[in-house]
């Protein structure tokens, strides 16, 4: 395992970094924050915690988590903790609310699964959607990656997709369905890590 202080410079620098403007990118309402001192190439293994779900579809959290895990593996950015292993660690530590974890809990959780960073997040919106008889999914996702050693958020994003493309509207053909749209969304937002 690589030294945690290499992933993000030590606490001495944190005060200074907090004063800096975070690097933000925004496209069509999508927002990305990347900690200026984060170096993702030094993270080997991440775990994706069960996502909080604010959508009406009760399966949305697990649905998005599975697609996100697949995209992480497909892009080869990091080794990814198996969802079953992550679930077990959460249960073993008696954690019921994954959205409000303390720094110590995060560290303990990550230690159990041997990950250097954890992804936590919330599904804000998750609808199949249909406009003029054309598939028009609506998805909004808020996601962040926490460096477990320092407890700092090193990457955070809120991405959404909704509506139907002009081309689909014009031709009356279906656009991507809910799963495909989720995969595209995850691909886009993870693309902000790989640059």
């Amino acid at each position, binding site marked *: 395992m690589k030294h945690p202080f290499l992933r993000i410079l030590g606490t001495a620098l944190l005060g200074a970094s907090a004063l800096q403007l975070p690097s933000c990118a925004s496209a069509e309402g999508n927002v990305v924050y990347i900690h200026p001192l984060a170096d993702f190439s030094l993270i080997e293994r991440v775990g994706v915690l069960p996502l909080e779900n604010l959508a009406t579809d009760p*399966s949305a959290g697990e649905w998005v988590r599975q*697609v996100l895990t*697949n995209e992480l*593996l*497909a892009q080869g950015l990091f080794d990814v903790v*198996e969802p*079953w292993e992550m679930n*077990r660690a959460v249960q073993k530590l008696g954690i019921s609310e994954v959205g409000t974890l303390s720094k110590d809990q995060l560290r303990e959780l990550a230690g159990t699964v041997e990950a250097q960073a954890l992804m936590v997040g919330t599904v804000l919106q998750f609808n199949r959607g249909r406009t003029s008889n054309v598939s028009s999914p609506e998805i909004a996702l808020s996601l962040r990656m926490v460096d477990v050693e320092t407890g700092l958020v090193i990457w955070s994003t809120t991405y959404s997709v909704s509506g139907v493309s002009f081309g689909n509207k014009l031709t009356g053909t279906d656009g991507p*369905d*809910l799963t495909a749209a989720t995969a595209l969304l995850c691909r886009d937002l993870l693309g902000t890590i790989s640059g």
Partner: protein
Amino acid sequence: MRFPATTSALLGAALLGLTACAGPAPGDQPAHPAPEAPSLAILPLQGLVAEVEDLRLLATLLREAFESSPELVGRLVPQEDVERVLAAGRIRIVDTLSPSVARRIAGELGGVRLLTSSLVFASAEPEPTAAVMLRLYDASGRRLGSRLWLRRGSQDQDLFGLNGSDDLDLLFQRGAPRLAEAAFAGFGRLPGGDRPRLAVFPFESSWEIPASGPLAGLIASHLLEEEFGSEVLEPGDLNEAFLAARIRYLRLAGVEEVKALGRAAGVRWLVTGSVLDFDFGKGAEATPSVSVVLRVFDVESGQTVASTLAQRHGDDGEILFGAGRADHPILNLADAIRVGLEELQPTWQGS
């Protein structure tokens, strides 16, 4: 309402092509009886989500179909004898058998073949559909073949569904003889030799259809054996390995437990996944859609080494300008899993 003979023939052909969810339609192929019709014991039909009445009806119909098919079965072991042996051995789960358990049951019944069956999907809406997993074992406990049999609707359903008499009971009545034939369609087809050995773990289900996960796992197992030339760990052996490793739910298993389970079972690659979408669609214009994540876990490294998202969405099977039917989600699921396995195959083929 009748429609022209040409249209009727076209529709009939299209429906026939959709009755099986994996490869050629086993339920609609001519049976391949063994050279001499063997003695057979039919173990009680199991059901993942089916109603008890559905199970009883299908079990009765299936038994009657065998009784009226002497070319398939020489002697059918009385059901009381089967139940007596199972009760004496305290054997309750009989949809999948480990070789040792199958050998014991077959021996106590006088060296007969065993047929296990499981109604893995049964739904009256939006159209009657049933899927049955069949497994045939010889007297030594070796599995001779397995078949996943799917039947939807009724083959004499007319173009606009005006028959109105098509329900699950009718589907069972019409389907049972074909199901009996299907039990022997896979006889002796499992190749031997040096094949990649895999285990298929239970898949997570979509929230809306709890049977979708087990169904996806069965489809994946079936495809791996029948189309991908792999050897899949006997489901009965996998059950025993789960018990030995004290794993009750895969979703709460630890990586070390899973590695130990894989090593004990003698497999390096574990295939698992999660059904995300299993949607029939609603309304006249709706189209069914399915999506499934498939992953391969390497027991040696303790890592997930391959993952893919496969999906089918749309109405490729729709016929006759929207007046026909769209593909059933089970067929879409099988297609999606087949595509996913094709992507994952290099993982274990390269080992």
